[in-house]
Each structure stands twice: as structure tokens, then as C-alpha cells.
């Protein structure tokens, strides 16, 4: 599905990513964990074209997408749910979702079918209730769902999520993670970036650990969960507190 080879990128003279190689297979949840500043968000931005790579290859479903404009990359089937959700605050929930389908109805003959919001409403019933409300008035959790729903409207081959749990209460985080799991069960492919490493590894098939712009460890999620180093560095929160 997604293949990245020897990717390097950065902002100006600042090199953030060095020699990154990873891949995501069809129907997998792959998670990328690492401390803040490791370059996770930069990697996602480079994949979806918001940032130009300095060198390396990125291909999606066998097609080279490196150095293309973000619009093209979205059209090629790669959607990003950005950090901080980035909903269209002053527009209705419905309009937000319809805009997500943009890449489909631009080409499609039957435009009406592309505007079918039912599948998203099934996944997120709360959005149906809030259909006419302005997106900016939703709670953080609802906005996260809206951002995910909007990305799904494009029916992407690969859906990337940048820290979907940031700033959300534990209960809502659980809810979000169960939805990501559900997405996989429906056949979607997910690349997930998370601070909350344990929760991410629990639902993921495979994981990569990033540090200082490099991938230092990779493997099946279960192995990473059991890995002593990873545990100490990223899963410690749960180790020293088991009541919660």
C-alpha cells in the first residue's frame, strides 16, 4: 500500500527526517510512536505533500506520489486527519462532511451518491444529531470524530491520523481507539501517530518507534509492547501506575 524508502525532509536548513523507510500493508493498522519532536508529524506532512521531501521515495499503491501537490495526493487516496482536528469551524457539520467527499464527486458521474453521509453517521451517530450545528461549537471529542468522518468521506485507500487522542478525556480516547479498530475491521488501512503509545500498540498490527528523525525499532505491535526498551521509554506511564 504505502512504501517509503530512504526519505529525508526538513524545514530549511533544519533536517528533521533522516533516512526513513517504512511500509504499510493493505488492511493494517500501523502505528508510529516516539517522543515529541521525533519527527512523526513531519513525516505525515511529507507523505501527504504539505512538505517537500529532500530525497527518497514515497509510493502509494505502486504509484510514486513524492513531490506532488497535496491535492493530488489526496486524490490518489491518502487522507490525513490532522493534529488539532482542523475542522471548518464556521461551517455546519454536514458541510464539513460533504467537503470531505470533494475528491470523489469532482470525478464521479453520480454526484448524489458521493454525498451519501449514511456510512459516516452510522460510525458516528453523534454527528447525525449535530448535523446542522457549526463545527466550531462541537466538543473536542466530537470534533475529532468529525475530522475522522470527513477524511473517511473521501473513501481513502490509506487514512493517516495525527495524534487523535491529544487533549481528550480518557473515556473519549477509548471511544476513538475503538472506532479506529472498527475502521480496520471494515477493511480500511490506517497509519496512526500517537503519544499514548500503549493504547496505540494495543490496537495496531505493527509499529515503528521514531527517535530524532530516525526509525530505531520496528516490529509487530505485540513484540513492541513486550520490548523492554520500548516499555521503559514510552510505556512507563502504565508501569508506574496500574490503578488507572
Amino acid at each position, binding site marked *: 500500500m504505502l512504501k517509503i524508502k530512504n526519505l529525508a525532509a526538513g524545514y530549511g536548513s533544519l533536517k528533521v527526517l533522516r533516512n526513513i523507510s517504512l511500509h504499510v500493508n493493505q488492511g493494517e493498522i500501523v502505528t508510529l510512536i516516539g517522543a515529541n519532536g521525533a519527527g512523526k508529524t513531519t513525516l505525515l506532512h511529507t507523505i*501527504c505533500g*504539505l512538505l517537500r521531501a529532500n530525497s527518497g521515495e514515497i509510493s502509494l499503491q505502486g504509484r510514486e506520489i513524492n513531490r506532488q*501537490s*497535496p*491535492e493530488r495526493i*489526496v*486524490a490518489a487516496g491518502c*487522507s*490525513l486527519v*490532522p493534529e488539532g482536528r*482542523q*475542522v*471548518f*469551524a*464556521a*461551517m455546519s457539520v454536514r*458541510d464539513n462532511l*460533504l*467537503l*470531505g467527499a*470533494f*475528491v470523489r*464527486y*469532482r470525478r464521479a458521474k453520480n*454526484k448524489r451518491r458521493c454525498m451519501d453521509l449514511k456510512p459516516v453517521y452510522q460510525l458516528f451517530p453523534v454527528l447525525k444529531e449535530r448535523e446542522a450545528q*457549526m463545527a*466550531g*461549537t462541537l466538543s473536542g471529542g466530537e470534533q475529532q470524530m468529525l475530522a475522522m468522518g*470527513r*477524511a473517511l468521506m*473521501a473513501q481513502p485507500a490509506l487514512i493517516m491520523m495525527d495524534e487523535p487522542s491529544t487533549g481528550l478525556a480518557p473515556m473519549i480516547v477509548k471511544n476513538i481507539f475503538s472506532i479506529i479498530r472498527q475502521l480496520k475491521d471494515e477493511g480500511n488501512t490506517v497509519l496512526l501517530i500517537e503519544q499514548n503509545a500503549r493504547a496505540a500498540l494495543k490496537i495496531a498490527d505493527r509499529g515503528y518507534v521514531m527517535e530524532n528523525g530516525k526509525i530505531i525499532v520496528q516490529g509487530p505491535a505485540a513484540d513492541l509492547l513486550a520490548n523492554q526498551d520500548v516499555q521503559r521509554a514510552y510505556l512507563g506511564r502504565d508501569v508506574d501506575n496500574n490503578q488507572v
Partner: protein
Amino acid sequence: MSTELFFQYFSAGITYGFLYAIVAIGFNIIYNATGIINFAQGEFVMLGGMTAISLYPFMPLPLAIIAAVIITTIIGALVEMIFIRWLDNPSVLRMIIITIGLSILIREAALFIWGESVRSLPYFNGSSISSINIMGANVSPQVLWVIGVCAVMVTALSLFFKLTTLGREMRACAANRLAATLCGINTRNRITLSFMLSAAIGAAAGCVMSPITYSQYDMGPGLAIKGFTVAILGGLGNSMAAVAAGLLLGLVESFSIVILPQSYQEIIATSILLLVLFIRPHGLFGNKEAAALKEF
């Protein structure tokens, strides 16, 4: 005040009111797509009128007007493509200064081409003295042209933004550019389109108004400040309200002549602007909650 005089002021107020509304809508279109206030908005009106006047000797009036609108639209597109398109996330201050600089440059170019003389297009029907009797009052047919053309443009635009998918995409670009890009929308093209749209309606207004208000190279800034007053009065981004606000300002200004000499007329519009900014910056009809969700 005699009924006749009253009606004269009234129709002048309505006519200018529509002009201000069109300029305000021009502001709104670009603001909605980019979050930028285009200080060169008044110059589009001037360019439309002046171009049509220059073309008129060579072709029939309707053709001259259409050509003028097209030329101004192209200029609008060029302005966006040359000066704005490639800027990476510019600050509000930077955009204010750039569009002010552009308005100066367009104005100086117009001065170079057309000189300082005041010109006008001929009346579309009849002449400056012909009139139509409506309910006992005499109205110049040109006033009806202004009202008709402006009303059609306003309705068409509002339907475009509300109902069409292209309109929704343009609103999305305004709401959150990053998110719009991630939805696969080519935000840059939408923004060029917004400049073209607002240049086109400005130019069209500049043409229909020309017989009444005349055209001159430096008419832009005055129109821009009034258009902005109207845009704020109606609530920035709200085009239907801009029409109501435009008519309000046009009438107030027109009737103010009863109390104050003409030379103070511009002070009235500007004072209204300041008052609205101080007291109700989200506009007379604006929604405070919605305004809070936008970034200025």
C-alpha cells in the same frame, strides 16, 4: 422638504447604496475565500468604468461593457497570481500592506493611461434628463438599471455560495485552508477565482454606475472605505446583509446633505465606520458567536 426633493435624495441614496453594497460584496468574496481584506477593491470598480469608457467609441455599449468586465476580471486574476498566490501563509499585516500598495499602483497606472479627467459612459436608455414616472415620482431609467443589475448579481452570488459545491469549497478555503487542502481542494485556484469574481462584479457595477457617478482614476479609495463600512455594518462575509447595510449608508449619506454641507459627506460615512467598529464590530446583523469562530 418637498416630496420631489425627498424623492431625489431617496433615489440617489438607493443608487449609491447599491454601489456600496457591490463593493462590500467584493470585499466579502475575497475575505471569505482568503481571510484577506483587499484594499484594492475600489480600483476594480474604477477599472471597469474607465475601460468601458475607453472601448465605447470602438464598439456598441453592451459589448464595451462586457469587454471591460472581462478585462477587469483578467486583471483581478493576474493580481492574485502575481502578488498573492505564492505567498506562504502571509500575516494579516503583510496582506494589508500589499493590497494597499497594489491599489496605489493601479491608481497611478490609471492616472498614467487616462489622466485626471472625469469621464462617463452614456445613459443606457435615453439621456440624463429622461425619466420614468413611478407612482407619481420621476426616476431616471439608469437608476432602474443599477438596481436591476445589482439585484441580479447579489442573488446569483448568494445562490452560488449557498447551493453549489464550488461555492461550498470556496467557503471551506476561507474557514480553514489546511483542512481544505487535506480534503483535496486546490485552494489556490479557489482563491484566484474569488479575485476574479470580485473584480467582475466590481467592474460591472463600475459600468452601470458610470453615467450617474462618473468615473475618475482616483475614485477607488473613497469607494473602498464606504464599501468596507458597509461590509462591516452588515457583518463581514455576509453578502445579503451587505445590501441592506449599503442601502442604509446610501440613504443616510444622501439625506445628510440636509444638515451638513456636501464637503462633510465623506466624514459621515467614515464616522459611521468608526462607530460600528467601536460598538458592534460583528455588524448590525452579524452573529457574535459566528464571528468569534472566525479569525481576523
